[in-house]
C-alpha cells in the first residue's frame, strides 16, 4: 500500500476523477434544465407555478432572460447557481437553497444510516458465510442475501412500518424525532434506514464472501496461519480487512439507489428530506424546488461515488492503473 511512494500518480488520478465528476454534474443538470425550458407551454407557468400573477410573470420573464437563446440561458443558470442563488420557492416564499439545505441533512442521515446497517450486517453475514464455506449455513445465507437484494425497498418499508410501528408499536410511525435530541433522532432513524439498507446487506454479504474466499487463498494468509495464528483471527483480522475494499466501492455507487429508496422511506415514515421535498414540490408544480433538489441529490450522489472511488484507489494501487 504505497500511498506515499506514488503520491504524484495518485494526485493525477484524483484530479482526473474530480474533473470527470464535475463534468457529469454539469451535463446532467444542464440537460434537465434544457428539457424544462424547452418544453411546450409557458415557461413562466413552469417556473413560477400556475398561481403566479401576470405582473410577476412579466417581471420574471425579463429578469430570467427567458427570450434569450437556450445556451445563454444555461450559462446564466449556472452563473446564478455558482453565486449561491438557486431561485425562489414561490409557493412558500423562501429561497430554494433554504428549503433544500434544511432537507439535505435528513436524507444524508438516512443514507448513512442505511450504509451503517448494510456494512455491519453485510460484512458479518459475508464473513460468516466465508468462514462456513459450502455448509448449509452458507447456502441459507446465500439465499437470504439474494432475497434481501430482490425485495423492493418500498415494500420492505411498508411491511416494517406495519409490523414494527403500527402493530408492535416498537418504533415511531412518523417524523424525524426531536431536534437536538440525538437519542430520539436515532430512534426515528433506525427503521427507515434499515428498510433502505436491507437490499445492500445482501450485496455486501455476497461481495465480502467472494473476495474473502479469494483472499484466504493468498500466500500471506497461509503464512499467517503457518505462524500459528488461529483460523478465526486470520479470517476476521487479516482477510476481512482486504475483503472490505470492493464493498466500499459498491456502496459508493449504490448511494444513487439508496437516494431513490430514501424517497419511499421518507414518504412511508413521513420524514423530512430531499425525497419528500421533491415529492411535495411535484404535486404543487413547484419547479424551482424540483430543480434545486435534483441539483443537490445528483451532486451528493456523484460526490459519494467519487469519494468511494478515490478511497479505493488510495488503498489499492491496481485501481489507478485500470
Amino acid at each position: 500500500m504505497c500511498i506515499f511512494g506514488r503520491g504524484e500518480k495518485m494526485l493525477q488520478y484524483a484530479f482526473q476523477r474530480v474533473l470527470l465528476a464535475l463534468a457529469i454534474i454539469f451535463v446532467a443538470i444542464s440537460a434537465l434544465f434544457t428539457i424544462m425550458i424547452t418544453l411546450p407551454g409557458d415557461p413562466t407557468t413552469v417556473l413560477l407555478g400556475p398561481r403566479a400573477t401576470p405582473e410577476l410573470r412579466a417581471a420574471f420573464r425579463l429578469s430570467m432572460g427567458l427570450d434569450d437563446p437556450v445556451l445563454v440561458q444555461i450559462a446564466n443558470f449556472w452563473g446564478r447557481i455558482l453565486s449561491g442563488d438557486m431561485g425562489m420557492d414561490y409557493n412558500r416564499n423562501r429561497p430554494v437553497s433554504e428549503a433544500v439545505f434544511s432537507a439535505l441533512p435528513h436524507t444524508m442521515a438516512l443514507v448513512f444510516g442505511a450504509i451503517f446497517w448494510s456494512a455491519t450486517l453485510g460484512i458479518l453475514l459475508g464473513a460468516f458465510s466465508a468462514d462456513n464455506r459450502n455448509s448449509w449455513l452458507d447456502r441459507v445465507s446465500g439465499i437470504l442475501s439474494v432475497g434481501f437484494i430482490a425485495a423492493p425497498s418500498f415494500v420492505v418499508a411498508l411491511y416494517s412500518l406495519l409490523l414494527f410501528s403500527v402493530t408492535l408499536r416498537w418504533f415511531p410511525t412518523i417524523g424525524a424525532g426531536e431536534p437536538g435530541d440525538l437519542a430520539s433522532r436515532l430512534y426515528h432513524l433506525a427503521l427507515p434506514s434499515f428498510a433502505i439498507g436491507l437490499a445492500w446487506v445482501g450485496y455486501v454479504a455476497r461481495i465480502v464472501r467472494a473476495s474473502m474466499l479469494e483472499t484466504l487463498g493468498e500466500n500471506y494468509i497461509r503464512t499467517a496461519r503457518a505462524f500459528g495464528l488461529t483460523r478465526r483471527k486470520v479470517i476476521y483480522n487479516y482477510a476481512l480487512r482486504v475483503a472490505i475494499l470492493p464493498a466500499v466501492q459498491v456502496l459508493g455507487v449504490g448511494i444513487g439507489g439508496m437516494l431513490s429508496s430514501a424517497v419511499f422511506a421518507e414518504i412511508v415514515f413521513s420524514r423530512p428530506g430531499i425525497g419528500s421535498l421533491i415529492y411535495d414540490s411535484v404535486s404543487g408544480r413547484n419547479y424551482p424546488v424540483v430543480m434545486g433538489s435534483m441539483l443537490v441529490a445528483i451532486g451528493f450522489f456523484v460526490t459519494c461515488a467519487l469519494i468511494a472511488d478515490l478511497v479505493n484507489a488510495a488503498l489499492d494501487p491496481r485501481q489507478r492503473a485500470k
Partner: protein
Amino acid sequence: MMGQFRHSLLGRLLADPMAVFAMTIIVGLVVVAIFADAISPHDHTLMNLADRFAPPSSTYWLGTDNLGRDTFSRLAQGSRIALYVAIVAVSISGTIGLVLGMIAGFGPRWLDNLLLFIFDTLRAYPTIILALALAALLPRGLSTVIIVVVITSFSEYGRVVRTQTLSLKNAEFILAERAMGASAARIVFHHVLPNVLGPFFILAAMNLPVVITIEAGMSFLGIGVPPGTPSWGATLKDGFDYIRNTPWIIIAGGLPLILVTLGFTFLGEALRDQLDPKLRKSR
C-alpha cells in the same frame, strides 16, 4: 446445434431447485396475466361499500380495499400492467443499449469516450428522483414510466455490451475475419452480436424485476398509472393510506411484488451460473 444447446441449458436449469422455484413463479405470473379475467372471482372495479376493509375470506380471498373492491382480482389485473411495462421497457432500453454498446466497443476511440461519458452521466440520475422531476413535466401514464426506465437503464446494457465487444474486438477469429476482408457490418452482426447476447440476456432477466419495482414505486407515489388503474403500486398506496383500518391490503399488495422479484432474480442468478460463471466474480 442451437436446439441441443437450449435443451441442455433447460435441462441444467431444471436440476437446480432454485431455478425451478423461480420458473414456477414466472410461469405463474404469465398464466395469471393472460387469464386474469377468467381467474378473478369478482369484477376488479366493482365497489361493494358494505364489505369495505374485509379480511381474507372464502368470498374475498385476499380481502377488500377502502372501496370494497376485491384485492385478489385487482392484483390479478395488476400482473398485466407489471408484465407489460417490464417487457416493453426492457425491450426498448435493451435494444438502445445493445446498439450503442456495440458502437462504443467497435467504433473509433473518440466515439467510445463520448458514449461512455453519456453512460456515466445518465447513471448520475437517481431513478425515482428523476422520475419525480419528469413527472412534473410529462403527463401521468405508463408511457412516462417507460420513458423514465429507458433513460435510466439503457446505459447499463450499453456498458455490459461495450465491455463484451471490446474483449472480442481483438480475438483471433475476428482478426481472421478481418484479414479475409469481411465488412464491419458482417463482423458485428455475425460474430460480435451472437457472443454478446449471453450476458445481455442475463442482464435483461435481472432488470425485469427492477422495472416492475419502478412501475409499482411510481404508481405508489401517484406518478405512474392513471388513478383507478389496478397497478400493484396503486394497491399498496391504498393500503398505506388505510394502514390503520386494515393491514390486509398492504400484506396482500406486497406479496406479488416480492414473489415476482424473487422469481426473476433467482432465475437471473441461475442463468448467470450456467451461461457465464466468470461474471459471478465481477458482481
